[in-house]
């Protein structure tokens, strides 16, 4: 996914990113006039498709994107209770800083809401060092009066702690989530499952803290990747909500997830981090299982594909992201929703899913299917209807949990194909 600072940031966070050599490309350390306000500045910010501007003008511009995203859609009621999700990445710090700034402005421009922050700790699953509690506490002091809380991914929502009372533990529940993940055969299913679990956890934390709105720090490249991933996972019907400004699936609609940074790009985040001297707690934004390489899961593959294509076709991310803007979720009134991900279930039988089930039935019947051809469709139909409380994608996860499919066979098949088929002549 995002590779901001992955190479730049050492152990001391973004501190050494401030030396001249590792400045983000586009920031020029030379005296010149800002084309916006005309004042002379020793540091000019040159974004793609924009003229060089001074720090103050740059900050105004980027912060406006954040305010405009919330303002134009009128999604945040006055004095709403907001929960900001911090994951230690540069993006989440940018969001924190922008929200803090928006709260400290004068009454006329102030963003009227009451914010809390929750840090979601997932080091136990990711097998990396726990977050530095000191730097987290330093953040909470820097961004007063926000209340900071910490929750560990996998732990029950009741183990939510205020930052002042928090100390890293190795709770049994976290292991339980780890064990459940281990049961899933593919990394694809694990990542998908974890993403939903994370959302569900955030929803219950929000309810516990009486927050009606949650702020998430996804930027455009994250959302472009998310859209393609959702399509690959068979979540087309709900993909629109995965990338929209407002996602209302959390806690049955009681908690609304907002993505106010959705219009920001990587460069703007880099510049903002530099301009405000922010220190990300983590190197880059590492997802669970990302270290296993591009071909380990559909999610990793999609993320790498978007990044690579973006290098050759500069408008890839923005085009995909804008496609996401044009779609809407496939919902009907009085429609049941998925038990796990809360997406709306299909209102009518899908021909494609029926075709998959039919394939399964005919494969079982083999040559004898000519005798009972009609019954097979009935069988497929029944099977499809029996999975009625999970959406198709969540059902795939469930299937991996249920049966340890003959995974050991896989390599034998690879051998078989090498011998049996002249695969070179595929189109």
């Amino acid at each position, binding site marked *: 996914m995002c590779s901001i600072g992955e190479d730049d940031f050492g152990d001391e966070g973004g501190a050494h990113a401030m030396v001249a050599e590792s400045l983000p490309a586009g920031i020029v350390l030379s005296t010149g006039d800002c084309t916006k306000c005309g004042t002379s500045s020793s540091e000019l910010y040159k974004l793609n498709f924009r003229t060089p501007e001074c720090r103050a003008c740059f900050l105004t511009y980027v912060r406006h994107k954040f305010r405009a995203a919330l303002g134009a859609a009128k999604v945040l009621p006055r004095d709403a209770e907001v929960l900001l999700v911090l994951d230690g990445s540069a993006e989440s710090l940018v969001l924190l800083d922008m929200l803090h700034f928006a709260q400290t402005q004068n009454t006329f421009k102030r963003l009227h809401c009451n914010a809390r922050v929750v840090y979601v700790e997932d080091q136990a699953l990711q097998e990396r060092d726990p977050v530095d509690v000191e730097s987290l506490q330093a953040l909470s002091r820097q961004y007063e009066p926000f209340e900071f809380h910490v929750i560990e991914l996998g732990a029950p929502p009741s183990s939510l702690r205020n930052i002042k009372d928090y100390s890293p533990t190795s709770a049994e529940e976290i292991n339980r989530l780890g064990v459940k993940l281990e049961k899933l055969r593919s990394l694809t299913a694990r990542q998908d499952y974890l993403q939903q679990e994370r959302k569900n956890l955030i929803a219950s934390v929000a309810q516990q803290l009486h927050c009606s709105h949650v702020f998430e720090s996804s930027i455009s490249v994250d959302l472009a990747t998310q859209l393609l991933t959702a*399509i690959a996972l*068979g979540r087309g*019907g709900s*993909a629109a909500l995965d990338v929209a400004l407002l996602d209302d699936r959390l806690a049955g609609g009681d908690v609304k997830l907002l993505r106010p940074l959705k219009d920001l790009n990587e460069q703007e985040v880099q510049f903002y981090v530099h301009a405000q001297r922010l220190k990300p707690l983590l190197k880059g934004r590492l997802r669970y299982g990302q270290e296993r390489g591009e071909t380990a899961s559909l999610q990793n*593959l999609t993320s790498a594909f978007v990044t690579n294509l973006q290098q050759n076709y500069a408008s890839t991310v923005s085009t995909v992201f804008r*496609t996401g803007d044009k779609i*809407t979720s496939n919902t009907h009134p009085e429609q049941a929703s998925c038990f796990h991900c809360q997406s709306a279930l299909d209102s009518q039988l899908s021909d494609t899913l029926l075709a998959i089930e039919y394939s399964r039935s005919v*494969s079982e019947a083999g040559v004898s299917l000519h005798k009972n051809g009609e019954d097979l469709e009935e069988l497929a139909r029944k099977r499809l209807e029996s999975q009625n409380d999970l959406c198709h994608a969540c059902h795939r996860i469930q299937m991996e949990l249920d049966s340890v499919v003959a995974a050991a066979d896989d390599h034998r098949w690879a051998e078989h194909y090498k011998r049996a088929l002249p695969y070179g002549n595929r189109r």
Partner: protein
Amino acid sequence: MPINCKSQCGNRAALKRPKTGDALCKECFFAAFEAEIHHTISSSNLFRRGEKVAVAASGGKDSTVLAHVLKLLNERHDYGLELVLLSIDEGITGYRDDSLETVKQNRDDYQMPLKIISYEELYGWTMDRIVAQIGRSNNCTFCGVFRRQALDRGAKLLGVDSIATGHNADDIAETVLMNVLRGDTARLRRCTDIRTGGGEDSIPRVKPLKYSYEKEIVMYAHYKKLVYFSTECVFAPNAYRGHARAFLKDLEKVRPAVIMDIIYSGEQLRFKDTVKKPVRGICTRCSFVSSQQPCKACVLLEGLNRGLPKLGIGKKSKGDRMIAKQDQELALRERANLVKNDF
């Protein structure tokens, strides 16, 4: 340890189906593969008894398998269809001339009448000459646009009720991905439809292989020893589609079921009311179906005939400017001629 066929027929499995992960022997695979296509045809009501159906045949594996299976099912399940082969000769030396030989072989093998229509006779241009004009970039635009219309023209000539094309599940999934990457909502809406077109003014296209994996089609053709042509077009393949294709192949390696999931996703996508829908109309020049006025084929053809091959490529405003400039020059020359005549 050898793996046994899932159907418990007692035979050893010969392959593992990518769609479901089931291991099947050769005979059970044939039965399953054919039954699925029959299921697709009957559950979507693709054909009606007594219809005349053109199979769009290129000589490649998809259309060869399609022709073979349609003939087989037509006899087995008594669809009552009259099947004909329809081929388009784009005029690509070293590619289409060879593949048409394969189609002729199919014609003899399956006892189906064959109609070949060439770009030369329809448009007065072969792809070889078009490429000589425009070069290796954008040539696939011409070929694709012309072929789509040529199929319509051929079908009208043959008087068929529908055209069956060999688009397989991989092709459709790839198109879904590509349309998302290009932000093409108009095509995204209809690319997963099993039947497109139809109505009073056009001949419907159907995709009986919509749920058949490319891998299975290759295996079917291989085990059935069908004759097909498997060379890539000599002109550079479409670069952007290539990215989507490579991506899909990588995804398939990770999770073979992904192809069906992408088709399913594509079908489930819904669009905001604010997104413009294309309106299907009739081209005023050639009176074939088009959502633009005039249709793309007419614009491209006009470009070729005017000696401005880039006319239909890129923005319409640019094309308009090109035409205006050329008209102006022509008018100037004409006036110069007039002056000369006066003397």
